[in-house]
C-alpha cells in the first residue's frame, strides 16, 4: 500500500546522515565527557562542537545552549527554572491560551504554589494581541511565555513585537519554538527573546533530545540537580550520541531551510486550495498567511476527526486531529476552543503537516482520498442530512 506521511508535527524520521553521525558515539567514542583522560576530553570537545552547531541554527552563542531530553523538558526548564530563580522578584507569569501542555502545565504547577498565572486569549486566527499583553504585565510579572508557531493551527506569532513590550518592562520572555525551528528562520536576536525551546524530533534528529537557549548568564534553577554538566544547569551524564544527532540535524536544517520553505509553501497552497475547491463547508483553522509553510489544518463540518483519520489511514495516509474523540480525556483541543471553534465543528478537525520528503503527487493522492472519506462519513452523518435540507 502507498504510504503518505503528513504528520511531521508529531515526529519526523531521523535523517540518514544524522544516524551515521550518531553511530560511532554508541560504542567507539563512548567515554564519559566528565573524565580527564584523552578519551573523555575528546568527547567533551565533541559536545562543545555540537553546541556551536545548535547555537548557529538560532543565531545564539554556544554558551547560551543547554541540551535537554526534549522540547517538553526545555519548556519545563524555562518556566520552572526562571520562576524558581526569580520568585523573590515576583510571582506572576503570563502565557497564551494556546501553549503546548508542557508550558501550560508547568504554569499551572506554579499556580498551585501561590503564583498567579494570566492566560492570554487569542483571536480567531490564534494570534496574541500585543496591546493585551502590555495590559496584562504587572509590577510582579517575572516571565511571559508565548509560542513561536502553533503545531495544531500553524499560526506564527509576532514574537519580536511581543518580546519588545517585555524588554521595555524588564520582564523575561520565553518562546516555545519546537514547531518553528527548521521550518522558518528563527533567530534569537531578531526575535529578541530571553529563552527559546527547540526539539530534535521536529528536525530529523531522534526523539529524546532537545535544547534550551537562555540569554547570556541568565539565572536558571536546574530541574535535575547533579554534577557540573551543562554548566551546572542540568545534571546527568550527557547523552552524547543524541547530542551529536541534534548537532548534525541543526547543520542540515540551516543548509536546507530556504529550499525547504519554498517546497513546503507550494505543497501547502496545493492542499489548501484543493480542499477548498473539492469539499464544501470546510474552515481553514489558523492564520491564512502567517502560518508555517508545511502546515494545513481544517475543520470539516458534519463529520468527526478520529473516524476521518482512521479512514485515511486505511489508504496509507497519516494525519492528525484535535477532535475530542481522538483524545484519551475526550476533550476538544484547547487550541481549537481558544480560537472560538464551536464544539461540533471542532470535532471535524484534521491537521496535515508536511516536510521536504513530501511530494506534489502525494498531495493529489491525499486530496482524492480525503474527498472520498469525507463523502463517505457525510453519507453516514445525521448532521449532513439536515444540512442538505432533506
Amino acid at each position: 500500500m502507498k504510504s503518505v506521511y503528513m504528520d511531521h508535527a508529531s515526529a519526523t524520521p531521523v535523517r540518514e546522515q544524522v544516524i551515521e553521525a550518531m553511530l560511532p558515539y554508541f560504542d567507539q567514542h563512548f567515554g564519559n565527557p566528565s573524565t580527564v583522560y584523552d578519551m573523555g576530553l575528546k568527547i567533551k570537545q565533541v559536545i562543545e562542537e555540537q553546541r556551536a552547531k545548535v547555537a548557529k541554527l538560532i543565531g545564539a552563542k554556544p554558551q547560551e545552549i543547554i541540551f535537554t531530553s526534549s522540547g517538553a523538558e526545555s519548556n519545563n526548564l524555562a518556566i520552572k527554572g526562571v520562576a524558581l530563580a526569580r520568585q523573590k522578584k515576583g510571582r506572576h507569569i503570563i502565557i497564551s491560551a494556546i501553549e503546548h501542555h508542557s508550558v501550560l502545565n508547568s504554569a499551572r504547577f506554579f499556580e498551585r504554589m501561590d503564583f498567579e498565572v494570566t492566560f492570554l486569549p487569542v483571536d480567531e486566527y490564534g494570534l496574541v494581541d500585543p496591546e493585551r499583553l502590555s495590559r496584562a504585565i504587572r509590577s510582579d510579572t517575572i516571565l511571559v511565555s508565548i509560542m513561536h508557531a502553533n503545531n495544531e493551527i500553524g499560526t506564527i506569532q509576532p514574537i519580536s513585537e511581543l518580546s519588545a513590550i517585555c524588554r521595555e518592562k524588564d520582564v523575561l520572555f520565553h518562546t516555545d519554538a519546537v514547531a518553528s525551528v527548521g521550518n522558518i528562520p528563527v533567530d534569537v536576536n531578531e526575535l529578541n527573546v530571553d529563552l527559546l525551546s527547540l526539539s530534535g524530533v521536529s528536525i530529523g534528529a531522534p526523539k529524546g533530545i532537545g535544547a534550551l537557549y537562555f540569554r547570556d548568564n541568565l539565572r536558571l534553577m536546574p530541574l535535575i540537580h547533579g554534577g557540573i554538566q551543562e554548566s551546572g544547569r542540568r545534571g546527568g551524564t550527557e547523552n552524547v550520541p543524541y547530542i551529536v544527532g541534534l548537532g548534525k540535524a541543526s547543520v542540515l536544517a540551516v543548509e536546507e531551510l530556504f529550499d525547504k520553505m519554498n517546497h513546503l509553501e507550494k505543497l501547502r497552497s496545493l492542499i489548501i486550495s484543493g480542499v477548498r475547491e473539492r469539499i464544501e463547508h470546510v474552515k481553514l483553522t489558523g492564520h491564512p498567511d502567517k502560518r508555517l509553510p508545511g502546515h494545513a489544518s481544517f475543520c470539516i463540518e458534519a463529520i468527526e476527526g478520529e473516524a476521518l483519520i482512521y479512514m485515511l489511514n486505511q489508504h496509507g495516509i497519516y494525519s492528525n486531529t484535535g477532535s475530542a474523540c481522538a483524545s484519551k480525556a475526550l476533550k476538544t483541543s484547547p487550541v481549537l476552543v481558544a480560537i472560538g471553534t464551536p464544539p461540533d465543528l471542532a470535532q471535524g478537525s484534521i491537521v496535515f503537516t508536511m516536510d521536504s520528503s513530501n511530494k506534489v503527487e502525494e498531495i493529489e493522492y491525499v486530496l482524492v482520498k480525503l474527498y472520498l472519506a469525507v463523502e463517505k462519513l457525510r453519507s453516514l452523518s445525521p448532521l449532513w442530512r439536515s444540512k442538505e435540507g432533506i
Partner: protein
Amino acid sequence: MYSEKVMEHFSNPHNAGIIENADGIGEVGNPVCGDMMAFYIKVKDDKLADVKFKTFGCVAAIAVSNIVSEMAKGKTLQEAKSITKKNVAKALDGLPKEKMHCSNLGAKALAEAIKDYEKKKYG
C-alpha cells in the same frame, strides 16, 4: 486500539441510511458532546423487519451503530429491547475503555426508536 471486528463494521457499515416512512425513529447524543445517532425501524408482525441508522461520531460510534442494527434485525421488539451496551461491546470483541460509554449509544438509540413506534401505535 480497536479490534478487527470494530474496524470491519466501521469500514463497511452496510446498514447505514434512513428508512422513508419509518415506523419508529430514535435519536440520542448531540454533536456538541461528540456523538449523535439516529435509528430508523420498520416493524412487521411485532418483528424488526428493517433497521437503519445515521451516525455522527468516531470509529467506535459508527461500528456500534452498525452492529446494533445487525443484532436487532429480524428480532422481536422484546428481544431487541434486551440488547445492552455490554453485549454490544462484547459482540465487537471489546471497545477501548474511554469509548465504552460516550460512543456506545446504539442500544439506547434503538430502544428510543422502539419506544417511538410503540407510542405511535398504542398512544
